[in-house]
């Protein structure tokens, strides 16, 4: 196993697995306890519009995905809080519109889009160094934001109405929270692709929450669960020559079913 580490792409892949797991451990914990899994799904699919825009403009799609996913996070947040449109309707619309825009942009861009598939389904084995640095930067932003606004984000997730009464600026905090989701989506796109992002964002936290009732521990546990499972998936995809993103998601899914099964057997 160790000899594969001599390849740069493998070292990059491992780095990507760690960086992605940090983002999804922290933000995923909130996504799961605040139950906004499908909002996150909407944001990640809408981010595909940004990927397409990158192709059209001839720049790194990760760079265009950042403003695009943040805009869609704001879109979902603002529309759903106004109350005229149901939240899930807003999600559905932005989800589809974002994907459609992406396809249109790619169609309009000159030539053929060779690594389009890797943005849809992830390609952890081909992450360039520049993207790794971007992921590191976004991780730092996420960690700092959660560190600074931990008590607001936690209170908001627990009881939004009471948070408002005690003076937490719930609306801006909610939008900030959705922006964090948007940033994590961008971090994760390289690893599992827009379509499978939701797995990495929810499964490590969903597994970990079965074993702790402490939010900080939940985040840390999710990070390590994420690292272990992504690395196992990465290794399996390498050894068996399978699509990496899909293999990682299937490893995550199997771990989730197994942990739920064993948790069911354990006395409470």
């Amino acid at each position, binding site marked *: 196993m160790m000899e594969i580490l001599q390849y740069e792409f493998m070292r990059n892949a491992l780095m990507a697995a760690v960086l992605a797991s940090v983002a999804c451990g922290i933000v995923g*914990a909130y996504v799961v*306890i605040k*139950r906004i899994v499908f909002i996150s799904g909407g944001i990640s699919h809408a981010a595909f519009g940004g990927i397409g825009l990158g192709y059209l403009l001839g720049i790194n799609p990760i760079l265009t995905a950042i403003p695009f996913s943040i805009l869609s996070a704001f879109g979902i947040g603002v529309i759903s809080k106004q109350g005229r449109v149901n939240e899930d309707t807003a999600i559905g619309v932005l989800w589809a519109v974002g994907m459609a825009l992406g396809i249109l942009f790619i169609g309009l861009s000159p030539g053929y889009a060779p690594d389009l598939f890797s943005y849809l389904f992830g390609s952890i084995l081909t992450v360039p160094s520049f993207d790794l640095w971007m992921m590191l930067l976004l991780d730092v932003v996420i960690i700092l934001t959660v560190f*600074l*606004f931990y*008590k*607001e984000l*936690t*209170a908001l*997730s*627990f*009881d939004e*109405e*009471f*948070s*408002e*009464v*005690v*003076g*937490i*600026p719930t609306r801006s905090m909610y939008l900030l929270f959705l922006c964090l989701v948007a940033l994590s989506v961008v971090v994760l796109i390289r690893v599992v692709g827009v379509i499978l992002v939701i797995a990495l964002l929810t499964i490590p936290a969903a597994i970990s*929450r079965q074993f*702790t*009732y*402490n*939010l900080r521990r*939940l985040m840390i546990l999710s990070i390590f669960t994420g690292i272990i499972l992504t690395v196992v998936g990465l290794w399996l995809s390498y050894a068996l020559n399978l699509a990496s993103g899909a293999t990682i998601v299937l490893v995550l899914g199997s771990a989730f079913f197994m942990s739920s099964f064993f948790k069911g057997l354990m006395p409470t």
Partner: protein
Amino acid sequence: MINEEIISLKNIGVRFGDIPVLEGVNLSIKQNDFLAIIGPNGGGKTTLLKVILGLVKPDEGEVRVFGENPEKGRRLIGYLPQHTSFDLNFPINVFDVVLMGGYKRLLKNYSKKDKKIAVDALKTVEMLEFRDRQIGRLSGGQLQRVFLARAIVKEPRLILFDEPTTGIDPKMQSSFYNLLSEFKKRMAIVLVTHDIGVVSTQVEEIACLNRRLFYHGAVEEGLKRLETTYECPIELIAHGIPHRVLERHEKK
């Protein structure tokens, strides 16, 4: 303490779409008041509390809370909602939930003093032994007491209760009444309830709310029945102070 006016509602109207929920509601609450608001389901009781808290913006009228708009003034109000919907598996313990009530502002962490006050609040509601318990692992009555602790932890000057005794067993109810008599020495209380027991034993003033804050024959009848049941003298409605119905208890 001077009995200053702390809440003033003037001609409040609230509509949800086409449906009027509150109409022409005038209410004045003073620092020493202990007011119960009774009324039928859908009569707008919870909405009235939410107007005071700034959670519902009235379509008409003016709200002043401690002389300010509700968003500012509500920092001096404690609130115990009727239902708190939350995820029973939420990773948080009782102590941290109570601590939330002492929130100050962005970028300011809970101080040692805040934690001390949270411990005291848990002691007051006799829930200190459960401080490390995950919030979903409590009974309905225990949960209610934790949320009560959360409401008093910022040492409010007014506390709003929305149906505080529904779903609580009689023993818990009487200990809740005892708590109320504790609280009323320190803060104004407004209580929305169906529970005539609490009205008769503790409350000093009563108002009826059914879209409008008002009284009619049937309610007077109800209050006369209250009088015979609880031997509580009733001062009949005087104009100008429409919510004065039950006689003020003699101050000791």
